[in-house]
């Protein structure tokens, strides 16, 4: 039963990306199943953001192939693609005073036809997303009045309202207080488990990655150093080779690894 549900959501075949002739990603081949919770770890400049941007079609100038549900990403139309994949950028834009409810409703863009208004299903989806991210009370406030944590939750809600199968997040917890960090990871975990959504995120926090992700991809200098479940990837040797720092690894009650610096 479980095996039957395992559908290949995303696959790359020797994906490479160059910026002005300098290779940033080299020959990456990876396959991600529907319902996985993948965390990408790696030092600054290891190509994490580029990797996610190449997968979400924001960077188009790529070599190799990216397949989404068995079809090359280039064969999707933008709008259609947005129904499968949503993306939370590292710094969500807060330059304009859009209302929170309007921002979340923007997640419905790929579904609303050009000459139509929002339908009840669109309103329902936006409502559910605000419920999940616990931002209902902010609905009529505007972006520029919110704290950093609230802004992140608003834009995650937008991505949730998008009802895509795969959700990419670039450092969803960066610059947030510790309580928000845990809260956001818990919400994502709930979203992943209850709705069988695929989650691929970048984080700098090895312990969060180890605790919440089902799989970790360790990236360094544009290549995948190691990929596997947290117990496999979080080990002294690989972390030292990638981050160049001595760490001590302990295990919690659920036998999940965590590091001490």
């Amino acid at each position, binding site marked *: 039963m479980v095996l039957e549900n395992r559908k290949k959501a995303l696959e790359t075949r020797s994906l490479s990306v160059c910026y002005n002739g300098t290779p940033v990603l080299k020959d990456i081949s990876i396959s991600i199943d529907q319902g996985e919770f993948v965390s990408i770890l790696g030092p600054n400049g290891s190509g994490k953001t580029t990797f996610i941007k190449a997968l979400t*079609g*924001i960077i188009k100038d790529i070599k190799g192939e990216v397949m989404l549900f068995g079809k090359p990403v280039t064969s999707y139309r*933008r709008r259609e693609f947005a129904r499968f994949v949503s993306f939370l*950028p590292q710094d969500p834009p807060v330059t304009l005073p*859009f209302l929170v409810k*309007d921002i979340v409703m*923007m997640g419905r*863009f790929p579904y*609303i036809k050009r000459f139509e208004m929002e339908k009840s299903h669109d309103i329902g989806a936006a409502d559910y997303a605000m419920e999940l991210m616990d931002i209902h009370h902010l609905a009529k406030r505007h972006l520029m009045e919110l704290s950093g944590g609230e802004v992140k939750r608003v834009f995650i809600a937008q991505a949730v309202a998008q009802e895509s199968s795969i959700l990419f997040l670039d450092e969803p917890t960066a610059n947030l207080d510790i309580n928000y960090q845990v809260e956001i990871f818990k919400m994502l975990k709930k979203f992943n488990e209850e709705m069988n959504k695929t989650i691929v995120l970048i984080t700098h926090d090895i312990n969060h990655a180890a605790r919440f992700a089902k799989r970790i991809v360790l990236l360094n200098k544009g290549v995948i150093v190691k990929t596997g479940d947290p117990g496999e990837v979080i080990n002294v040797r690989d972390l030292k080779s990638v981050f160049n720092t001595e760490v001590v690894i302990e295990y919690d009650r659920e036998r999940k690894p965590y590091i001490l610096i």
Partner: protein
Amino acid sequence: MKLFRKSYISYLILFVVLFMSFMISISAGSVSVPFINTVKVLLAELFSLNLKTIPEVQHDIIIKIRVPRVFLGMIVGAGLSISGLVFQALLKNPLADPYTLGISAGAAFGAGLAIFLSYAINAYFKTLLPLFAFFGAIATVFLVYFLGRTKGRVQILTIILSGVVVSYLFSSGLVLIMSLLGDRSHEIIYWLMGSLAGYHRHLITAAAVIFIFIVFTFIFFRDLDLMSLGDDQAKSLGVNTELIRLLLFSTTSLITAISVSLTGTIGFVGLIVPHSMRMLFGPGHKRLIPASVVAGASFLPLSDTLARTVPSLLFQSGMEVPVGVVTALFGSPFFIFLLIRGKKRLWF
């Protein structure tokens, strides 16, 4: 400052303002026509009544001179406002408008060239002035847009910078023309400050084209919302940013080119109107587009009314200043006000 975010009363207010602007603008002028007569003339025209009580002269002043002039002001005001609004959203820059993108300078150069040729070769060229201005504007847009493209991608900052550069280029070209013309260059100076005084044969056609493009722009209000937030965001939500930028850049440039070729370069309308509307209606284009169009159509005729009445009252009877002087007198303090409110809040 989200006064009218919710209610439809705001639209009502805007249309009342538009109507009042229209009435004030056709009532005021150097020849005084009693307000009641103005109303009578309008009603008579609208319902084909025959009112003998009103002097022929007053009727003609209102119907043949003031109404076309106010109508021209409404069209160009709406056109310049929506141009500013759309350029600001597409380029994510609060300072983008026909002026800063160099389109006005390109049109001015075209107009200057037509005036120069009319003296140098044949007076006939002067009748081609709107056409020259139009193509000057279009040529500038092409130049700016393609200078702003690097490796097939449109770089927003590069577009703004190339706008500034191209603007300087055309301005110096115009100065060259003016120095060649010597004493006769005053026509160009008048054109540079803009005027609603001219007579235009194709006014209705121009109005229709601008109106169609405005409706076309409105279809993309959701795309504009997303693009004003940022390209990455817009793309990941399914907006075809490249296509829409090219499409709306083209239509907006045509609106600008038509507007500028009708009246000369009138500054600040494309900045003041969209920014004021953002303060009142928030950043969503579903409201901003109609609001900016109506507000622009009210603002420019009113400015023109000031331009043709106040100097005549203050200095000498019958004196007029170019309408661009009035919009600049409103615009510069407004901009200083925006700057004082702080860089982060420049948008609203």
